[in-house]
């Protein structure tokens, strides 16, 4: 069999303001193989695929791409699609109220002089749907089929474009076991038809089952490319070592905790997906946190960490929520945000721009937003007390803005995060849930956030820290729970926490096996 290289990416470097997302990445994909890319959240996998597909146009990165024997300079998705590279994103991009056939040919309509040829559209769609194993009529609406089948429609859409290289970003993250198996079979079938695939996945057992070779990316660099059929079998251990093999440095402030009584206990917590109500997103999870303790929640994308936190905090996520929440040993009601705040729980969201801040308002008004009653009497806000409070937080948390009259939307990410923290510290909760508090902010600001978190714990707050960065969890937390596919798979105290150990627990499937 001819062993030619279909894709080669050489020396790819992609910078964002203040961050190098990709640093001299090299990737070579052999024609007709299934090539897996794995790495932690934020390692740079998706960025690399966006460079490849032209989402980041030629010129916005350094390095070169050779596809099918010739150098290519894509300026957009349409350029790469014309060459036969199709990317299927994790968030499906189908239009829910259009039919399967309309979706398959969206932007690529079967038409004659601008008039859609419906017979051709539907018959070709039916053929493509059969090829991916779907028997639904082509005029079915997307919203009427499940997520697993929608994924297959995406692939049918890719096939309609004469695809040579298919890129799948976390294709099974939202699928159940049966749908996942079916999808993997399909990818194998496409390989036999000569279509090359790149698959990004967190599920190491899947990679083991399907990949011909695997490239490991860590911190924006290629670490290694492993031949999965080589003399020495590549185990999940081997992959994990590649994914996390990073030294812990002194990026974290020293902290000796003073841990007291249990403050919050979540018991037997189960949450279902808000739309796909059959799907369990969090399964019988039980966690607790004590006074003065910082407890981490570790998990890969889709593990259910944010879903757990947001469903506890006023049922802001999911349906069919069951389980109990105990505060200082007594069961409390957290079924609305107001009730959760009354129970002394605060949740600082991972998406501060969408859910955390009013960007068109001032620092002062954002800081007081969740505890306005504390600066008001008889429903009238004492603006001077409010201003003085906001000024105090601005100084204590070192928000870099000359004044609290500045609009929050104009601050940097790190400073916005400090405003979110100020807002919840001002509400004076007993339990503070921080969801990815250092996402997208620079190292210096991260250190400041860690210091603030430590200080909160020293003041007797119980802190739950959700993070995708294992070094951060190990460097800051006293105890770490691992979640995988909605279940708590482990509880590790700081002394025992290594990245390898955590990654093992985070990649366990729900039956408790890693290999």
């Amino acid at each position, binding site marked *: 069999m001819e062993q030619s290289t279909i894709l080669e990416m050489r020396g790819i470097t992609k910078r964002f303001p203040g961050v190098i997302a990709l640093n001299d990445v090299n990737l070579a994909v052999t024609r007709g193989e299934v090539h897996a890319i794995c790495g932690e959240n934020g390692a740079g996998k998706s960025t690399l695929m966006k460079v490849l597909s032209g989402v980041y146009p030629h010129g916005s990165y350094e390095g070169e791409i050779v596809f099918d024997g010739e150098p290519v300079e894509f300026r957009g998705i349409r350029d790469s699609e014309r060459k036969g590279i199709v990317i299927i994103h994790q968030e499906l991009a189908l239009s829910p109220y259009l039919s399967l056939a309309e979706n398959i040919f969206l932007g690529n309509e079967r038409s004659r002089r601008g008039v859609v040829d419906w017979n051709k559209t539907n018959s070709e769609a039916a053929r493509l749907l059969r090829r991916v194993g779907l028997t639904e009529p082509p005029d079915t609406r997307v919203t009427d089929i499940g997520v697993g089948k929608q994924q297959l429609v995406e692939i049918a859409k890719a096939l309609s474009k004469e695809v040579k290289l298919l890129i799948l970003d976390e294709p099974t993250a939202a699928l159940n076991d049966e749908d996942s198996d079916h999808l993997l079979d399909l990818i194998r079938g496409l390989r036999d038809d000569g279509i090359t695939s790149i698959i990004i996945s967190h599920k190491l057992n899947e990679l083991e089952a399907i990949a011909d070779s695997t490239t490991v990316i860590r911190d924006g660099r290629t670490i290694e490319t492993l031949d999965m059929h080589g003399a020495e079998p590549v185990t999940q251990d081997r992959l994990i070592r590649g994914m996390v093999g990073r030294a812990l440095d002194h990026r974290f402030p020293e902290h000796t905790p003073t841990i007291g009584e249990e403050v919050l206990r979540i018991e037997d917590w189960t949450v279902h997906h808000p739309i796909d109500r059959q799907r369990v997103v969090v399964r019988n999870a039980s966690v607790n946190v004590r006074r003065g303790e910082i407890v981490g929640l570790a998990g890969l994308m889709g593990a259910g960490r944010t879903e757990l936190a947001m469903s506890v905090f006023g049922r802001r996520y999911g349906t069919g929520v069951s389980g109990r929440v105990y505060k200082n040993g007594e069961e409390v009601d957290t079924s609305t945000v107001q009730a959760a*705040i009354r129970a002394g729980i605060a949740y600082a969201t991972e998406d501060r721009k969408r859910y955390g801040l009013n960007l068109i308002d001032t620092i002062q008004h954002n800081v007081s937003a*969740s505890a306005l009653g504390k600066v008001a009497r008889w429903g009238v806000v004492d603006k001077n007390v409010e201003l003085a409070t906001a000024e105090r937080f601005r100084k204590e948390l070192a928000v870099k803005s*000359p004044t609290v009259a500045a609009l929050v939307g104009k601050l940097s990410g790190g400073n916005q995060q400090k405003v979110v923290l100020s807002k919840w510290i001002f509400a004076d909760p007993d339990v503070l849930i921080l969801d990815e508090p250092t996402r997208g902010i620079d190292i210096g600001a991260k250190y400041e956030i860690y210091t603030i978190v430590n200080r909160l714990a020293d003041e007797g707050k119980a802190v739950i820290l959700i993070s995708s960065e294992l070094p951060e969890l190990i460097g800051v937390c006293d105890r770490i729970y691992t979640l995988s596919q909605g279940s708590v798979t482990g509880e590790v105290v700081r002394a025992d926490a290594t990245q390898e150990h955590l990654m093992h627990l985070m990649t366990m499937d729900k039956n408790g096996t890693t290999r």
Partner: protein
Amino acid sequence: MSTETTPLTGAVEGEATRGSALGSSVRQYGIFGALVVLLLLFQVLTHGKLLLANNVASLFQQNAYVMILAIGMLMVIVAGHIDLSVGSMVAFIGGVVAISMRDMHLPWLLAVLVGILVGALAGAWQGFWIAYVGIPAFIVTLAGMLLFRGLAIVLVGETIAGLPNGYVRISNGSLPNVLGFAGNLDALTLLLGLVGIAAVVFTQLRSRLAKRKHGLHVESLLAFVSKNALVAVAIGALTFVLSLSSGGTPIVLVIVGVLVIAYSFVMGNTVFGRRIYAIGGNRPAAILSGVNTKAIDFSIFVNIGALTGVAAIVTSSRAGAAVAAAGSNYELDAIAACFIGGAAVTGGIGRISGAIVGALIMGVLNMGLSIMAVNPAWQMAIKGLVLLAAVAFDLVNKRRAGTL
């Protein structure tokens, strides 16, 4: 809680505070400036007729309904909603009030209360569908627009005339000349003006002292004095002109004035007002901050309903009759006033004072063009262009400031 700041840092920060506060209020001042320019323009174009005492008095009497509706509409718009039903509701409530006086022989003061109550109930009806069922306000109030117009026609037929004198005086009368004249000036109007100036200076002074007590920055004495002087001159000039008019102070001006002061306070200084801005600025974030968005949404519509009741009373009182066709396009006048006054279409931004100035700009345009005997068709076209220009100006401004 520590509220101490060293005087030094206080002063340094003060500079920056003033800088950005100035930046954010350029648009606010810009609208005041536009009103002044417009006044001067028409004063010239009408050969000095625009600012004749009786014209100024009737400017308020003619436009009181827009200002009252604009107050409620501003709150609705800041929260990210819209209310298309207020025009029809004006006709409907006007009918209810007229019938309660004619057929049920209620004293007119009691009928006024009935009108406000019916408005609040109608608002609650719409607020229920919007806040608790989750139907977009545009649709609910579009339905309301049809519903209340229909009910108005059922109730009123065409016209119910012959409303009591006391009632008619609300919109057409002035405060009684109880204090006689000072020269040829109405003494009561002068007294009100002086009280107004004193009240402004007193509240400003009090806020300045409170800020100083909390160790916060206060503006320089010069800025403070000149700002207050400017306000005093503006109120003084208005007082002087009104005291020359045939009646003195129009009663509706007192109603509008009280509403403006009360609602400016609500929007600027109360928890309720602050939550309206929070909801409009970022609804999901407000929910996650523990704001009961449903209750706030509901209250906003009850509130605009009650204010529409007031507007309905003012309108039917001015006409001396309840008319089934009354109030048509009032919702558009109120919405235009809010947007000219700087409210953001996407919610979260807007001030009562801005909406009032927006209403006055429309009113001055109306009156100036009418005095110049411009064809009503052209008047309408000109008002349309002014609305478009104001919002375009707003958008360009925001883009330049990088907040969009």
